[in-house]
């Protein structure tokens, strides 16, 4: 069981929270300009990081507010909790950049 420190409510059990997937996936500036592949990548393609990973969480049975969290996907260590709309601390950790422009493996076949 993870003990997650909600920015509003303090440390609570993981079961009080819901996961919101990868953080910092920006909505395309002009969705109509995207072709099907780019749109599919925006919708469905996410980083699968080993190590520090920025993700969104919501404290659903508490204050019902969203926040971002930097969590190590190997050790489950929570490295940072920071508000929505702010960049990830450190910045360079994998999964902390906006959905990368690189095509996913095998996409060009």
């Amino acid at each position, binding site marked *: 069981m993870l003990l997650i420190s909600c920015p509003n409510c303090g440390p*609570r059990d993981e079961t009080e929270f819901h996961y919101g997937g990868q953080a910092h996936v920006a909505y395309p500036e002009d969705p109509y300009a995207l072709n099907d592949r780019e749109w599919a990548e925006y919708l469905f393609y996410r980083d699968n990081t080993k190590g520090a990973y920025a993700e969104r969480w919501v404290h659903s049975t508490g204050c019902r507010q969203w926040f971002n969290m930097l969590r190590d996907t190997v050790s489950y260590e929570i490295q940072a909790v920071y508000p929505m709309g702010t960049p990830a601390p450190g910045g360079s950790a994998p999964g902390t950049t906006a959905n990368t422009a690189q095509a996913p493996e095998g996409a060009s076949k």
Partner: protein
Amino acid sequence: MVETAAATASNNGVREARRSPAAHLAGTFEAASLAGVAEIKEIPFQTMAGIRVQRDSDAGARIAQVAGGLPATCGEVVERDGVSVLWLGPAEFLVIAPENAHESLGGDLLPALTEALGDGQGQVVDLSANRTVFELSGTRARDVLEKGCSLDLHPRSFKAGTALSTEIGHIPAILWKSGEDTFQVLPRASFADFLGRWLVDGMREFASPEVP
């Protein structure tokens, strides 16, 4: 004449027809309670209003005047004249008042709150039927809750006059410590039956005669 007016206010027919979410458990609660050790009862039909407003806005200030204040931090409860305001989120509050504050019984809490909000950003919603209230009291009340609530309920960290939104027996509920040995548990109405029975089950060991 006075009698008739009073009768109309409290007996407009709806009140008698209402059945509280845990009404069917009243006998179970009574049988499971042991005075002073672990007691449970339902306090049905409390008037509740959900408020969503920014505290520091003009509308927030107006609502605070009517409600008696808006709590600033997690856990804080503001009480004035029997009306309590619980903190649910940075811009979300729950007002709890006695049954007769509802306009169906002649009260004016909700219209007053709605008027205070005016055209400001936010909302005032009648949530009186959303939750029911279980009052769990007695010297063993904390032990009962600790069986299914992962919060630190020790008095040094959970003080009387604090309310937290959490999970009790895997049920999302608001836990409000209204007195040193008194807890108000507010589950949603549809969870009242399950959580009521769950609490009774947790009380059993304390409310039974001690095995020598």
